[in-house]
């Protein structure tokens, strides 16, 4: 006769503790999923139960993750070296430290993201976001698999995507067609196809050092964006956009630095999260809110504007006064 299993003993352990424990874990997990900052953020200390002393083993448990080419330099913005690491159900939820927390969008966003992608993005990037069209031809838009959630969030939340003009040399920033949440939803879906870092960053600007940020800005950023952050035209129709635009959020600045959109270089191990936070604090502070203690800034484009003012208003004005004082023949 086939074995009949003995009925489970009903004890306190099985009737109360086990369900309570499962509920507790589920609650913690949903907290981690919906509010990553509460666990890994402001206080700088994550819940001990979610931090592993060996990030690599935790990441192994996180499941497949594209960390190819990611630098392991301490606090450089990758999960190998971050002090806080949260994983759930084999998926990387968030990592980071006191300066920046990186978190993937909640997995509940994925379905909405698939919809949005199909409506807004698949015509240029392919149905699978891999740059391959329905008949196997190459699409206009590049392969997005492996770019990471931060990349997608940057391009969509800054309005660059969906592209206004697919033939333009570079997509320009404009009023975003999709809401920030929709951007995260698309990012969640693309990331789910091929999980990668960096995840969406959440910088913590309190405690940033603007002076260090200014110094780093002048070494790393001013060569393209100018020392005042006003942006300028680069080679062959490309350009470095202005950073003075106040609609640029701190999050977008971190995303740009870590993901290197378009022709911008990608800063990974050469800038730690603390250094990136300092740069972001300087950009969202002094660059976007210049104090101009000397008076009107004349556009911040430097001596050319000053020369025009000196010649037209200075010499020109004084010449007009000469015209009044003297005779005309």
């Amino acid at each position: 006769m086939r074995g009949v299993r003995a009925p489970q003993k009903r004890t306190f352990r099985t009737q109360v503790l086990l369900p309570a424990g499962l509920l507790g874990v589920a609650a913690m997990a949903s907290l981690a999923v919906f509010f990553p900052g509460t666990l890994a953020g402001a206080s700088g200390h994550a819940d001990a139960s979610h931090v592993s002393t060996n990030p690599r083993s935790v990441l192994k448990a996180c499941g497949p993750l594209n960390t190819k080419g990611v630098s392991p330099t301490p606090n450089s913005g990758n999960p190998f070296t971050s002090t806080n690491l949260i994983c759930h159900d084999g998926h990387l939820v968030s990592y980071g430290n006191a300066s920046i927390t990186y978190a993937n969008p909640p997995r509940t966003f994925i379905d909405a993201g698939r919809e949005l992608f199909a409506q807004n993005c698949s015509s240029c990037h392919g149905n699978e976001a891999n740059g391959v069209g329905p008949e196997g031809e190459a699409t206009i838009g590049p392969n997005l698999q492996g770019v990471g959630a931060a990349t997608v969030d940057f391009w969509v939340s800054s309005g660059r995507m969906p592209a206004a003009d697919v033939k333009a040399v570079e997509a320009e920033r404009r009023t975003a067609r999709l809401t920030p949440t929709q951007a995260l939803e698309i990012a969640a879906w693309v990331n789910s196809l091929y999980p990668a870092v960096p995840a969406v960053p959440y910088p913590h600007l309190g405690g940033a050092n603007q002076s260090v940020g200014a110094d780093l800005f002048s070494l790393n950023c001013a060569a393209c964006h100018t020392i005042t952050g006003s942006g300028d035209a680069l080679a062959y129709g490309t350009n470095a956009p202005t950073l003075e635009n106040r609609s640029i959020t701190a999050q977008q600045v971190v995303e740009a630095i870590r993901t290197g959109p378009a022709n911008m270089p990608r800063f990974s191990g050469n800038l730690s999260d603390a250094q990136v936070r300092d740069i972001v604090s300087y950009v969202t502070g002094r660059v976007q809110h210049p104090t101009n203690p000397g008076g009107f800034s004349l556009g911040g484009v430097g001596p050319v504007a000053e020369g025009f003012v000196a010649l037209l208003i200075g010499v020109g004005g004084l010449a007009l006064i000469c015209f009044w004082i003297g005779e005309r023949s």
Partner: protein
Amino acid sequence: MSDTATKTKRSVRESMGPFGPVGKIVDELDERFGVAKGGRIFLDKIFPDHWSFMLGEIALYSFVVLLATGVFLTLFFVPSTNQIIYHGSYAPLRGQRVSEAYASTVNISFSVRGGMLIRQMHHWAADIFTGSIIVHMARIFFTGAFRKPRELNWTIGILMLILAIFEGFIGYSLPDDLISGTGLRIGYSIAESIPFIGSYMVSFLWGGTFPGNIIIPRFFIIHVLIIPLVLLGLISVHLILLVRQKHTQFAGEGRTEHNVVGSPMFPTFMAKTTGFLFMVAAASALLGAFAQINPIWQFGSYDPSKISYAVQPDWYMGWLDGALRIMPSWEFAGVGHTVPLEVFLPAVVFPGLIFTICFIWPAFERRFTGDNELHNLLDRPRDRPKRTAAGAAMLALLFTLFAASSTDVMANFFHVSLNATLWFFRIAVIVVPIIAGLVTYQLCREMQGVHGIGKRKRSVIVRRSAAGEYSTVPAAPRADDERTELDPEPVPARIDIEPLGNGGDREPQSSPTGVRQVTR
């Protein structure tokens, strides 16, 4: 009991003679220095009144502003590239390693009361100084005031222009900030490119390798002592020659090669020129108060491995920067040596050529026109179309080069490719001066041929007859179309005055010579 007469106010006044206390002072000065005869001649000196003759005064008075504000700045500036940690009041710099020169300039801007104003006044006055020199030089050129006997004054003027440009460059390099330090690096490389002597020149001037520690102190003393002294000397000679040879004037009624017609030195010219001094200073002060210039605190201290995009030199060096950008990358390398033509030609040979043309122009024109006469009357620019066209072409060339120094800003503003913008300027720098010269020549010829150009035309009344035919009738003259002009005459001993009457009469009191009616 003393026997000195009681001193009443009246008796004191009467004892001074008919000219009062002023007469007494004149007596005292004349006894010691012999000022009487020369003084009267000096006060009677006549200055022609045309407005364009005042452009040189803009330069002179902005130089005075530069001296005054400059003295203030020297009391705070530290000419040293010693690196210190900044602990001043500007937060984004705190804790950074900066040079003492930079820190002291930031200190002037933020921690010295009135320092920001004086510093910005100084920089605006420098831009106005060079601008007004060029405008003044253009007036001299287009009216032919450089001709015999004034060639030396022209030469001194060009020398002062060159010194003013260097002085400005050195001045804004003193704060040792990122932008001006980059300019110094470029200056170093330009000097380095000179064949045979380049490496020696830079090694001597910089005291070794770039950037070294001695260039800022050396620039400081050149900027505050050496060049200002030379400029003061040249300005003095320039003005003495002007007084000795007397100012030129435009041709007109009563004006000949052998007289000067205008208003007297005292009180008219002195009042107007002193008032103008205040107004030039006011222009610097208002710009310095309301328009930010050279905000070095945004740039950071100079680090040779850092750079900002979209940097240009100050406007009077812009033509050189533009030339350097558009020059093709030709370099001669052979026989064991290198001559970087892409630097040497636009930055050394080209400005040398331009200034040489300026220096030899009076001689060249003498040879070209065969005219060796003395000239005290000015040309109208339209009467010398070839000279005016040449000057216009030169100005067009310099302006195109100046525009070429902001290729990146233009490419960004107009949303065109940077490469295309550069090619545009390579072509424009040849085409624009030629077109400007030709157009100017034509304009001059046309304006010569039109009588009464620039004068207001008499209006016409258009009448239509019953048959539909149109005819015109000149309208009545307007109120100020006819007016009285005086013939010139020597400054009288006194200008007699009338007591206050109803409107006063039109009888000339102190001009016995004729009165002419002038109709527009």
